[in-house]
């Protein structure tokens, strides 16, 4: 299988520069009587991937929808790529969303469209590129997720893992500056999950995209924190033992609508908080 050409090596430090791509400021949201998020604040730095954990119903997916303006908070402010989106009109949000990509929990592929039409959806809607360029970019995006052969199939003809990978291809085709992953490995077998995680690591280390990753699977985030993408061998490899972490990976844990942890893997492992220790054990 032919892999797409990787971008030229960028001369960037292993840790991202302190430029904030996404920021939540004291954000609260309640659904009917239930307070889902209660004054949460955090930042996502440029090039960083932040894994968000929490029990079911703790508001993890809600954070992603808020970050994209699909939901509006009851209070607080959200900044993405320097724009404050909570007071933004829907028309203006459509423009901003062209620079942000999201992979939904159940893929959310358009079931009446083929894989090609799904992946090219944004390009076809924009109508700014030629048919040839669309074909080229669809092939490139599908090649990234190693699914070039599915181009004429419908989503119903794909397995769960393949659908998730097509959703990733659809998201990265326009090279968004921020990526939001909603449980990309949820319900998948370990082998397919590993393939997805490798794609996420590749996106982080090769394309330096900032990302929020919502997941139930601690091992996925730990893998991302302890592995890097080797460009020469075109595969994910573990960081050499004994070296300090050199990948831009952070963890955020939610509990009862509050953030109880926001930091790197080493800090997470040293925490004395009983709840967190039990959660990560």
């Amino acid at each position, binding site marked *: 299988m032919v892999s797409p050409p990787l971008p030229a090596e960028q001369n960037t430090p292993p840790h991202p520069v302190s430029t904030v791509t996404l920021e939540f400021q004291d954000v609260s949201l309640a659904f009917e009587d239930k307070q889902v998020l209660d004054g949460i604040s955090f930042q996502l730095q440029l090039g960083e991937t932040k894994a968000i954990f929490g029990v079911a119903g703790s508001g993890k997916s809600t954070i992603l929808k808020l970050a994209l303006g*699909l939901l509006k908070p009851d209070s607080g402010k959200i900044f993405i790529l320097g724009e404050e989106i909570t007071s933004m009109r829907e028309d203006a949000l459509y423009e901003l*969303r062209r620079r942000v990509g999201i992979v*939904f929990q159940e893929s959310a*592929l358009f079931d009446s469209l083929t894989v090609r039409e799904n992946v090219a959806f944004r390009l076809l*809607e924009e109508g700014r590129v030629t048919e040839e360029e669309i074909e080229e970019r669809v092939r490139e995006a599908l090649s990234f997720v190693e699914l070039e052969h599915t181009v004429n199939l419908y989503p119903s003809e794909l397995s769960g893992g393949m659908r998730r990978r097509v959703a990733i291809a659809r998201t990265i085709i326009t090279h968004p500056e921020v990526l939001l992953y909603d449980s990309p490995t949820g319900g998948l077998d370990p082998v397919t999950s590993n393939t997805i995680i490798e794609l996420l690591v590749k996106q982080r280390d090769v394309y330096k995209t900032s990302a929020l990753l919502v997941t139930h699977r601690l091992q996925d985030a730990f893998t991302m924190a302890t592995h890097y993408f080797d460009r020469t061998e075109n595969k994910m490899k573990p960081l050499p033992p004994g070296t300090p972490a050199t990948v831009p990976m952070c963890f955020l844990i939610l509990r009862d609508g509050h953030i109880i942890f926001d930091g790197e893997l080493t800090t997470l492992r040293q925490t004395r908080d009983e709840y967190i220790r039990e959660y990560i054990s």
Partner: protein
Amino acid sequence: MDIELISPSDWAKQKVLAVQEYAVIAARAVGNAFTSPRYLGDTTQQADLIGVGSLPIVILCGFFTGGALAQNSGSTLQRFGSLSLIGQLVSLGMVRELGPVITGLMVAGRNASGMASELGSMVVTEQIDAMRALGTDPMRKLVTPRVISTVIMLFFLTIISDAFGIAGGGVASALFFGVDFHQYWSTAWQILVFQDVFMGLAKPILFGFIISSVGCYYGISARGGTQGVGRATTQAVVASSILIITVDFFVTRLSMTLFGG
């Protein structure tokens, strides 16, 4: 199954909110038609689904409704020796009333349910959110093309239904009452005046808007998985059918007030 009781004030608030949401969706669907981007491809596809797809049932229903109307009218007219008026009665009945209403109800049953279930399924599988996330306005891409194509196609379907209804009446008159078909046709044609045609063609425009906007509203507001989609589908057909019959009453009254009896 647990039955959840709801206070009358909460129930009233929900209903007012639903009307408000419907009004917003309907207004945006119309407003989007006058600004770009316009989805001509989607509009044509929907026109094909709604128009060409509904053609067989509309022709059949129109033909047999006209036939039934002729049989009922014929037996009454025969008693008074006025059988020659049968063409006029069927023609007026079909063009002013039965053609628009029967076609509207048929298309409501077929397409309001289709719209509600299709959009509802897209909501519960997050495809609508995905569309918004990909920078496309679902109102513009999904709702507006359905509204435009339903209004246009129902207009023409009603004309076809009227024609087949009058033809069905002619066949029934000739078969059961021995009325000369040419005489039937000329009286049926000559009785129609501007106000009959106006009333008969204004109704499908309103009914088309009701069918599509109600179908899309229930689809877009579907909640609660597949069960919610099923509920939305049923509600869309019931609400659009009731609205068609109610609006028909008022349009008939308005038209008679404007143009006289």
